[in-house]
Structures are given as C-alpha cells and as structure tokens.
C-alpha cells in the first residue's frame, strides 16, 4: 500500500517537474509546480513529517506560487518561442550535464544514509510538540534570524518593486535606486512593446493619468475634487 502511494506520487512529482522545466508557457509551468509540490508534500507525510507537509502546502503552494502567478499575469509574460533554451546543442549539453551531476550527487549522498535496514518510525519523530520544543529551544536563534530575514525581504521587495516617486525622478538617478533611465520609462507609462500592453503598463498609465488630473484640479480649483472627469471640462475652470 505504502509502496503504491510512493510510486504514484514519485512519478507524479517527476513528471510534473519535467513539465515545469520544459513547457513553453510560464503559467503551465507554475501550475505543474503546484502539482510537484503537492506530490512532494504527500511524500513528506510518508516520511513521517506531516507538519512540514502541511506547511509546504500552506506556504509554498498556497502563497509563493500564487505570487508567481500574479506576477506572470501582471507582466504578461508570454510563451517562449522556439525550443526552450535556444540551440539544440545547448539543450543536449545541459541535459547531459544535469544527468552527470545527478550521478555524482547520488554517489556522494548514498553512503551517508548508513545501513540499509530502517528502524520503525517513532512516535517521537512525528510528534508536533517535539518539533516545537526543538525548534524553540535549540534553534531559537536561527528562528529569530529567519524572522528578521523575512522582514528585510518584505521591505526590500516593496522598495524595489514600487514606482519611483516624483521626487526621485526629479532628484536624479541615485535617489531612484541606482538604475539609469527609470525617469523616461516611468513617465511615459504605456510606451510598451508594439501591441502588448501588460497589466502593469495599464496600471501605471492609469495611475499617472489620475495623478496628473489630480494635480490639475489642485492647481485650478485648489480643493479636494475627485480626479475622475473623463474628457470633461477641467474642474474649476469656470469660477
């Protein structure tokens, strides 16, 4: 019974990871990765780690991959043209290299497993309270550091991904975070590739238009007027 479950989910994991790596469309890759994660979570349960399995589903499949999908849809990432990887020779070389790497890894890691016979799964290994004890006693410092790491990541991601504010545009390249030419791109909003406006472009175009209407309204009328007059007369133009 256990062997059957293992075989099914191991093949599923391997198959879906091949789809992740080989499919041209990033959306299909991401959805296959969800399947891979799900299969690996089942394997975790078989190995006596139900908490980790649930966490993998909750965090990885439930949050991180949704973020991936969100960004893929936002940036309108298209399908890759041609053979993924470009040249045939490059593809073959990479696959062979990976295989060789796998063999080397196997030869390296296998002996560390020790004796072939495995002891029965102890209740101790599976217990949740035991995991919590060890995590918060022995590994308290790494736990706190990981918390700090996540905070840093959140701040970093927010700073890197947001649109440069008007001050930063005016204040020069350095203030905007070191990437040259952001000013021209951000100002022109929808100046994307021919015909393929991504959701991000439309969002930014809408934002900058709304911002400029709001600025006009403030200048002309000097009040808190809604900046949503599509094509109408400028508010406050007629006193």
């Amino acid at each position, binding site marked *: 019974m256990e062997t059957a479950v293992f075989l099914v989910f191991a093949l599923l994991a391997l198959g879906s990871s091949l789809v992740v790596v080989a499919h041209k469309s990033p*959306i*299909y890759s991401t*959805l296959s990765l*969800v399947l891979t994660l799900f299969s690996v979570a089942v394997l975790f349960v078989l190995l006596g780690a*139900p*908490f980790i399995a*649930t*966490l993998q*589903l*909750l965090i990885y*499949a*439930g*949050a991180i991959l*949704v*973020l991936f*999908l*969100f960004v893929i*849809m*936002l940036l309108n990432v298209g399908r890759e043209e041609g053979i993924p990887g470009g040249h045939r020779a490059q593809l073959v070389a990479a696959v062979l290299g990976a295989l060789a790497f796998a063999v080397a890894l196997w030869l390296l890691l296998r002996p560390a497993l020790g004796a072939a016979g495995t002891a029965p799964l102890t209740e101790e290994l*599976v217990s*949740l309270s035991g995991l919590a004890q060890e995590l918060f006693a022995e590994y308290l410092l790494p736990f706190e550091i990981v918390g700090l790491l996540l905070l840093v990541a959140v701040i970093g991601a927010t700073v890197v991904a947001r649109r440069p504010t008007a001050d930063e545009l005016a204040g020069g390249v350095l203030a905007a975070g070191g990437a040259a030419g952001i000013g021209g791109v951000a100002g022109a909003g929808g100046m994307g590739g021919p015909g393929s406006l991504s*959701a991000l472009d439309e969002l930014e175009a809408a934002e900058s238009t709304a911002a400029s209407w709001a600025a006009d309204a403030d200048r002309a009328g000097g009040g808190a007027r809604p900046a949503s007059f599509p094509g109408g007369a400028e508010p406050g133009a007629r006193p």
Partner: protein
Amino acid sequence: MSAGASDLLATAIKLAVALGILLNVVPVMVWVERRGSALMQDRPGPNRLGPLGLFQALADAVKFMFKEDVTPSAVDRPLYLMAPVLGLLPALTTFAVIPFGPDVTVRGRLVQMVIAPAQTGVLLFLAIASLGVYSLVMAGYASNNKYSLLGSIRASSQLISYELALTLSVVAVIVPVSSFQLRDVVDYQQHHVWNVLPQCIGFLVFLIAAFAETNRLPFDLPEAESELVAGFHTEYSAMRFATFFMSEYISMTSLSALGATLYFGGWTLPGVHVSGLLGAAVGLAVLFGKVACFLAFFVWVRWTFPRFRYDQLMRLGWKVLLPLAILNLIVVAALTIGGIL
C-alpha cells in the same frame, strides 16, 4: 472484519454523510439567497414553483443542465476546462477535518467523528483552502479576455491578503488549546466558555476574512457584476458557471463550519451530553444549525452592503485586519501564559 477494513468502512460512511450534506446545501442556499434577498428588498421573490418557491433550485439545475454548452474558440482549452472542477476540490476537501460528533465505539473500535483525524487539523484546512485560488486564476487567465484577467488578478491578491488575517485569527484560537486538532478545540470550549467571548476581536477578523476568502459581497470584486461584466467567470456558461457558484457555496459552508467549531463550540451545546451514534447525529444537527446561522448571515450581509473598491479592500486587509489579528494574538498569548485562558 479486519481493523483496516472496518476503518475504511467507517471513513466511507462519514464521507457519504458529509458529501450528501455539502452537495445538498447548494440548492437550499440558492433558495435562501433568492427568497432572503427578496425579503430584504420588499418583493416576493420566486414563488411559482412549489410552495414558497421551494423547487426553484431544481428548476435552476435543470436549466443549467440543458443550456447550450458554449466554449469560446480563443480560450486556452485545458485550463478553461479544468478551472471549475479545480474549484470544487478544495471546497469539498476542507470539510474533512471538521469534527461533527463525539467519539463513538462501534463493535469495540473507537471511531472518531472526523473524516480525516489529522495531527495538523486546522493547518490542513487552511492549506487546502489556500489552494482554492488557483481555480479563479486559471479561469481568468484561460478566458483570454481582459475583464476576466483583471478579475483573476484581483482575486489572487485579495485571497492571499486576507488569508493572512484568517490564519492569524485561527492561530490565536489554537494558542490556549495547544493542539491543532479541532476536536481538542471543541473539547477546550466544552470545559471553558465559547471562544467568541474572550476572542471577540479575533472572531470579527475571522468573519471579515471569511467573507473575503469566499468572494462574497462586500468583497466580491473578482466577480463584480457591475464593473467587470462577470469577472473571472465571464466566459463560462451553463454547467461550468453552475460549478463555480457551487464551489463558492460549498466553501462558504466549510468556512462557516470552521468558524462554528473554532468560536461557537462546534458540535457541542452547553449542557447537552448525548453519547453513541445518537450523539453523533445530534452533534451533526447542532453543527449544521450553527452553520445555517452563519450562512444566513452571509446572505444578509450580501444584500445590505455595497461593494468595496479594490484599494479600499487592500487597505482593509493589510492596514486594519492584519494589525488587529496580531494584536489579538499577542493578547491571547499573554493571557495564556498568565494562566487566565
């Protein structure tokens, strides 16, 4: 009968009961929604089919089955066809960790009244519920239609934002209980008071996040009828559309059952102690009574409030609910350490 086989049979019976109830909730909810909204809007509502219009849902089901099944030619077929079904799976599966009765001894074997007595009970519920996003995302993307895409972008960001507040409010319930299993939560509430009293803020956060997680008004921007045509399910007709709103109702039911179990004592009532299979039946009835109250509340809120705008929605999720949930957690943790809870 061997131990393994009898466990399997017990699980099969529990599954049949649970599925029977969950799948039948949908037509009942359709009727409740339509008559309830009519009541609130001072109009009769469906009253032609059967007494009080009770067979309206049956008529709707027949209509959906016979409607022409149109698949637009420009859609991404595999994703388009998979999305509705994929929405049903998490909705139905999450109910598996909810206890609906006391432990029963049948022919010498202890049978728990839970379909899946997992060690990580509540976490498993949250994990599977978070997989529900994918069906909305796939539907919106596959439809090859900018309104659907917008709907699914909004859906994905809304769902992951409110998932955080939901998870934190659930964690606050778990802290005094010291176990993820829902039967222990119910047990705790039997010996103390229902969790809604000491953790009212947590319950409020949970309730609001539950509305957002199920895409119910006032958080139904992904389906926003007046803005996005029909949001992520624009290109779906007939039975596929019916599948989408079936999965919405079923996830509402599961989440209500979770809320009832976490905050209102689940299948227990103070003072009622029935054991054996009769106790299981009573427990099931009590649980679904509470779920019915939640569902009625869902319907009530839907026809009362206007929809949130996207930026208001995100602001509420991140700047209001998350800090409240964290505050609730800190207070509960402090009280637990202090021995009060």
